């Protein structure tokens, strides 16, 4: 096709969808201003000489020349790697059990998968400190019985411990799914040729499960590497994310180091995602054969059952430790240097409602707004990508999805840099960067990829003919979308909204950067503030419980809506 032909087609498509073209331009503008420019600014700033404003690699040189930063870099890598390793170590035996044996405890293992995910790592961090710290419950007992003290939570160990407990179910689910997908004939043909037991697992099963595992593991590495909240709350500052925060918070946005670190965070994030994609590329090991997939399961002997239950109970105890600790902390009056709190009270809960209700009201406000923005954008982008041939629509999709690779911290820093000089028109002397709407927009950008995916999936279920018949009967594009498409997408849209909603309760990276006064903070911020002092821990824990409840309910509802959507699949085929 020649350029002029292509140009002619593009123009006629614009003419065909004038309204949608305008929408596309608006969305592009939004993404440009609130995603692309701030991130670009951050990356460029890392290469700018602060004195002359010229391009330079000096900042990076300074970074590697400073012992603290070098240490932070390697610490972050170390913590990320170790968290993945330990999480995998927990997951392997459990995945092995569920895939190899007929084990009724498999249901428990599945639910083990959900529990850590409803509580973000930083929320449980302090509670874990109370339980496993040098003077925590477990060590006090160990001292009393055996005279030993295990440094579970010392320095980096604490971060690794909390993160691996939080992410191990993610790896478990990934690994289990990868194992389920293996064709039984793969295993049986190996058995036929003389292989069995652990050798079989090592030579055949594990390599076939590897791609799925690597994809999951690299995503966990990425999340641990970028996490700000957990190291901060555990007072571990010699890691990259806390360093970036501390530099900007104490020295200000002129400091180049914050930007240098941001570049590293983004590069690592992109690298991990690329690795995940690479691992899965072209390796469709899942085959469908009659007789069902999955490995042959056998009955367990009694001693095997006992062993399995013991291991599962131990792991369950660990997995529930942060939740348990959080509960104790929120209901405990005074708890220090003792195995359990001295007494129990509800005054922490009373306090959070009485003294600082704004943490919760802000959360609801920000979440709702961010959620609405996300589903509106998500639906619009999904519709433009799937239903039109407008030029550049794929780029809209890519850019919106790219937000998933940008750590929250980086977005926060980007907003500070980009918007600090501009004031909100109707509020005098209020820079745009510190206005609470900036938090809402940042949250919506961060969650847009997930909402977009939900909306795209929902739209793919709606057959084009349903729209065409409406248009045939006289309805214009917008009327059709309003009366036909959106109602049919409702389940998916709701799922997207709910996913976005849960974020404000638990996102800490960008929130810390953008909140200027305490009264603007959502739940996550409130938890952080309270946990700074020993006296506030109880209230912080109470807020933490509130956050867990919010996320838990949202996860539950989004599951229900996904189930319902799948049940009504008969309404339309995929395009």
């Amino acid at each position, binding site marked *: 096709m020649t350029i002029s032909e292509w140009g002619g087609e593009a123009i006629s498509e614009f003419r065909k969808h004038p309204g949608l073209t305008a929408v596309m331009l608006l969305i592009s503008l939004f993404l440009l201003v609130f995603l692309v420019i701030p991130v670009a600014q951050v990356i460029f700033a890392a290469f700018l000489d602060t004195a002359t404003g010229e391009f330079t690699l000096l900042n990076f040189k300074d970074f590697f020349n400073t012992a603290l930063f070098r240490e932070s870099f390697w610490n972050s890598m170390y913590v990320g790697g170790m968290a993945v390793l330990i999480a995998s170590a927990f997951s392997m035996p459990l995945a092995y059990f569920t895939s190899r044996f007929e084990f009724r405890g498999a249901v428990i293992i599945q639910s083990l998968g959900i529990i850590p995910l409803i509580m973000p790592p930083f929320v449980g961090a302090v509670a874990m400190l109370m339980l496993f710290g040098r003077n925590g419950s477990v060590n006090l007992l160990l001292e009393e019985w055996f005279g030993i003290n295990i440094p579970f939570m010392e320095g980096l160990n604490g971060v690794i411990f909390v993160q691996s407990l939080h992410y191990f179910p993610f790896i478990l689910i990934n690994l289990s799914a990868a194992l389920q997908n293996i064709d039984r*004939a793969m295993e049986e043909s190996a058995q*036929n*040729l*003389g292989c069995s037991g652990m050798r079989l697992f090592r*030579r055949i099963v594990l390599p076939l499960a590897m791609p799925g595992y690597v994809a999951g593991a690299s995503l966990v590495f990425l999340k641990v590497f970028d996490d700000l909240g957990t190291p901060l709350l555990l007072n571990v500052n010699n890691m990259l994310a806390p360093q970036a925060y501390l530099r900007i918070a104490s020295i200000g946005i002129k400091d180049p180091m914050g930007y240098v670190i941001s570049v590293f965070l983004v590069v690592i994030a992109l690298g991990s995602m690329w690795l995940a994609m690479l691992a899965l590329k072209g*390796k469709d090991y899942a085959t469908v*054969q009659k007789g069902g997939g999955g490995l042959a399961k056998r009955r367990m002997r009694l001693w095997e059952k006992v062993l399995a239950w013991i291991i599962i109970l131990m792991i369950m105890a660990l997995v529930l430790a942060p939740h348990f600790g959080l509960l104790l902390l929120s209901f405990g009056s005074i708890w220090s240097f003792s195995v359990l709190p001295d007494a129990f009270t509800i005054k922490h809960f009373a306090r959070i409602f009485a003294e600082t209700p704004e943490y919760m009201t802000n959360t609801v406000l920000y979440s709702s707004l961010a959620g609405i923005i996300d589903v509106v954008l998500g639906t619009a982008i999904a519709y433009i990508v799937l239903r039109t041939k407008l030029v550049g629509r794929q780029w809209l999709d890519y850019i919106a999805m790219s937000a998933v690779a940008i750590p929250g911290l980086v977005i926060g820093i980007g907003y500070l840099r980009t918007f600090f000089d501009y004031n909100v028109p109707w509020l005098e002397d209020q820079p745009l960067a510190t206005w609470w709407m900036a938090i809402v927009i940042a949250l919506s950008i961060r969650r847009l990829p997930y909402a977009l995916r939900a909306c795209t999936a929902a739209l793919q279920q709606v057959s084009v003919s349903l729209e065409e018949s409406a248009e045939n009967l006289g309805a214009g594009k917008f009327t059709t979308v309003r009366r036909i498409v959106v109602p049919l997408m409702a389940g998916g849209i709701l799922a997207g909204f709910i996913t976005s909603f849960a974020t404000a309760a638990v996102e800490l990276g960008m929130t810390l950067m953008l909140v200027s006064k305490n009264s603007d903070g959502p739940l996550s911020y409130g938890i952080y503030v309270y946990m700074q002092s020993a006296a506030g821990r109880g209230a912080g824990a109470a807020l933490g419980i509130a956050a867990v409840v919010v996320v838990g309910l949202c996860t539950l509802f989004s599951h229900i809506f996904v189930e319902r959507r799948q049940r009504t699949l008969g309404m339309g085929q995929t395009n």
Partner: protein
Amino acid sequence: MNNTLHGPASSVSVMLEGINLSFGKTRVLKGIDLQIRSGEFFTFLGPSGCGKTTLLRLIAGFESAQTGRVIIGDREMSYLPPWRRNLGMVFQSYALWPHMTIRKNVAFGLEERRVPYTEINRRVDKTLDLVGLLDLADRRPSQLSGGQQQRVALARTIVIEPQVLLLDEPLSNLDAKLRVQMRRELRELQRKLSLTTIFVTHDQEEANTTSDRIAVINNGVVEQVGTPMDLYDRPANLFVANFLGVANVMAGKMEEEDGKIFFRSADGVVTVPIAEGDQGPCSIVFRPQNLTVCPKDASPIPGTMQMAGKIEQMEFLGGVVRYQVAVGSYSLLVDEPHRLGEQVMPDGTPVTLSLNREQIITLGAI
């Protein structure tokens, strides 16, 4: 394909005694007794769900029977796990490991048997050469065609020199032409190696062209065992008669009159003198190609019995013209070879069917 891998001495017989297998409450195999001779190409033939694959998997060790014994060679193997039985099984999906090259796939069994490294390479090369895939040895399974994958799966099993070769519908994933070619190659290979082979299929043409003997299985029961021609010409019951080829069946009873035995069809229209048989209800079976059809007034063919009828329908099958002829209450199928220039008889023509009495098969009551 060239030199043999080993002499006939290493292949063995397979005996199944009194096998009963159930999955939960469902009885899948009912009282199976079979003897498969050493070096034989033996087929389990039957419709989907009849239990033939289950029987094969039982021999391989992937299923266990509630009662009965599996004896391979002279050893009872009923309780041995699959990895100790030294059998070679080719799965319907080939089950080639995608993360290994062809060479590694084929070498697997030898590695498990702790064969020295140099020996492994030698044998793998020899076997790959035997199946004609030596220059593809370093490719991955996904880079090979269906026919090539099937040969790799085969090579993988014969390189270990198993006692018995088990093939689970190995040709069903190939297109028609390739299937014909592959089954010939399979047969040739098996003869060269004199390897006891058990082949599972639902396709009677495959079974007929490759097997030394066939066991027809239906609903977990062995209906009949015999050579392909035996089963075709002398089916033991109606199922076998209908499964292998097309059959005309007439139900009726044997009667005696003047010391001679007659078969009288249920509607009384057809009577046939039968050489010998017990009185009572029975049925007779005869193949379409054994009937000859000619117009009513043509002179009868000597030595045959006649039946009067009318042509209902005609199917042109290329080499053969198949007439559906109404005789009494029956619709009989008659196959006439189609030769260039011969006229086809139109529907409605009154005709006479001739049948040689020796070509009638008598079966017990349906």
